């Protein structure tokens, strides 16, 4: 630790050195904790991956029947059932997360531009705290609103009897759906993105935008061609953070996205929006009751391991995507 002579005490006093070591130890504990967690989860999940190989990620059969068979495994460890094809849940996670991040990013970008550039001062003063408040609402509250208001509305009004009959032999449409899950998730993740993008747009040097304006460019074009372009690393960072939150969202999705391991079929056209699906994190919450059955618990840990890996990949991907953008923009976090 370096200190400024005369202001801070001389380095090397006893309490100083101790503080340094304590803080260092604390920081290292975080690293250890992450390593231990990854090792533990993968150790627990290994039998499920080892038994299925790459087929674990694939489709085939009905995933709920497979889970049920795993839960009803015989008592002898040699006879444990592990067969699982988790594709419907992986696909469901991607579908709901993708829906929310794409909608949320567009919404967040437009709202942030409005807040920074176009909003009158009193509106801005009201909007910004409101956005921060929305970002702090617990997900279970969104889940309750979804299940009490949106799900009955979609099930009763938007889904026609004809639509239900067209897929009745594959899946039932009761309102819990990709649409409700995606919409509520969008509402959940947009505020964080708005907050990050607003901060980035605001840190664009005044001279850049004023310079563009002096050349006769209108406000809207200045925003798109100068500010948003320079803020791209922050926009990527916002999208990564929001995706991470969407991936891990469990309680809300378990309540509104449907409780059946079904892979919505793009061939069904618009009906796909009304088909239910159950993302990975929601599957973990729904089935936590069966953790004590050994092979079932290991399968649940396998879901957790996939979530861990995907958030890791997400951080790396976000970092990689930011590198070429940084040359033109501001250094973002």
């Amino acid at each position, binding site marked *: 630790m370096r200190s400024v002579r005369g202001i801070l005490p001389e380095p090397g006093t006893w309490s100083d050195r101790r503080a340094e070591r304590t803080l260092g130890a604390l920081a290292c504990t975080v690293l250890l904790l992450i390593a231990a967690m990854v090792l533990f989860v993968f150790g627990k999940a290994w039998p499920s991956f080892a038994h299925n190989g790459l087929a674990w990620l694939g489709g085939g059969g009905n995933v709920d029947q497979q*889970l049920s068979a795993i839960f009803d495994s015989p*008592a002898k460890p040699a006879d444990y059932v592990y067969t699982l094809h988790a594709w419907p849940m992986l696909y469901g996670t991607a579908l709901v997360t993708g829906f929310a991040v794409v909608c949320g990013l567009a919404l967040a970008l437009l709202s942030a531009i409005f807040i920074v550039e176009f909003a009158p001062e009193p509106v801005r003063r009201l909007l910004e705290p409101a956005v921060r408040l929305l970002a702090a609402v617990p997900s279970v509250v969104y889940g309750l609103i979804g299940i009490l208001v949106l799900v009955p509305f979609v099930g009763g009004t938007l889904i026609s009897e004809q639509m239900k009959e067209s897929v009745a032999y594959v899946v039932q449409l009761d309102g819990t759906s990709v649409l409700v899950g995606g919409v509520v998730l969008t509402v959940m993740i947009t505020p964080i993105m708005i907050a990050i993008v607003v901060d980035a747009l605001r840190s664009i040097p005044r001279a850049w935008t004023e310079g563009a304006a002096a050349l006769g460019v209108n406000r809207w074009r200045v925003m798109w061609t100068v500010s948003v372009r320079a803020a791209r690393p922050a926009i990527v960072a916002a999208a990564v953070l929001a995706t991470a939150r969407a991936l891990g969202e469990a309680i809300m999705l378990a309540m509104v996205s449907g409780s059946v391991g079904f892979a919505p079929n793009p061939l069904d056209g618009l009906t796909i929006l009304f088909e239910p699906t159950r993302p990975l994190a929601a599957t973990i919450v729904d*089935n936590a009751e069966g953790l004590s059955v050994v092979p079932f618990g290991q399968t649940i840990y396998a879901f957790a391991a996939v979530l861990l890996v995907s958030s890791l990949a997400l951080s790396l991907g976000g970092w990689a995507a930011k590198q070429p953008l940084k040359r033109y923009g501001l250094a973002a976090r």
Partner: protein
Amino acid sequence: MTLSRLSRRLGAVAALAAAAAVVPAAGASAKTTITMSGSTSVAPLAAKLAKSYVKTRNVSFKLLQGGSDVGINDVAHGRVTIGNSSRDPKSSDPAGLVFNKIAKDAVCLVTNPANRLPNLSAAQVSAIFSGQVRDWSQIPGAGASGTIDLIGRTAASGTYDAFNKIFMGGARLSTTMAQKASNGLVQQAVKSDQNAIGYVSLAFTAGTNEVAYNGVPCNLRNAKSGQYGGVRNFFMVTRGPATGAAKKWIRWVQKSPIAKQIISTDWVPLS
């Protein structure tokens, strides 16, 4: 404040906290403590019984929830004295456990209040839940029309297990059934969907239309008299036969008239 003074203060606070935690524990150590964990369906009953039991005995209780399988796993590892279970013993349960039956509970079939379906036969129930019958027009007496929405529980729940054994008669559950994580979520889904049918524990039928099973309405009286077929068991599980205070407690729950009176408020006592 220097670090050493800070740490000394923190130490003092920690010591105080520890003392505060130890004192009541020391006071209670004269009593025996029975710990229970497990089924969320059994928990309200166990709490009512324990509240009455501690009035006359020198025993205290600690009751945790978590689901039948959590209770069974806890008791098998010696983490609790008794594990509460709302499902029958399974072949994959750890060896050496004793399932002490303490009461019975009815599982009711429910539909949306707009669909005043009066009765379903055993054959109709298994046809509906296995997906052979998919439209309300095929069910005489149904007040709804259109496709049937099946609402059930996740495979890991005790109620799912009970429903499969009692109502399905060997038929396979339809893969389209929505699998909810709790009784309350099934109740909510049925309340908000006119085409839904689901199954819940008797205590969760408010706001829905209860459907009679084989001509017998699902209520406490019919469950007690044995006429209603959809009845499952509640267990208190011990590792090996119960001993000491736990043995006395379980015998009191099973045999004493006071316990029977408490059980019969919402559940079915053993005859």
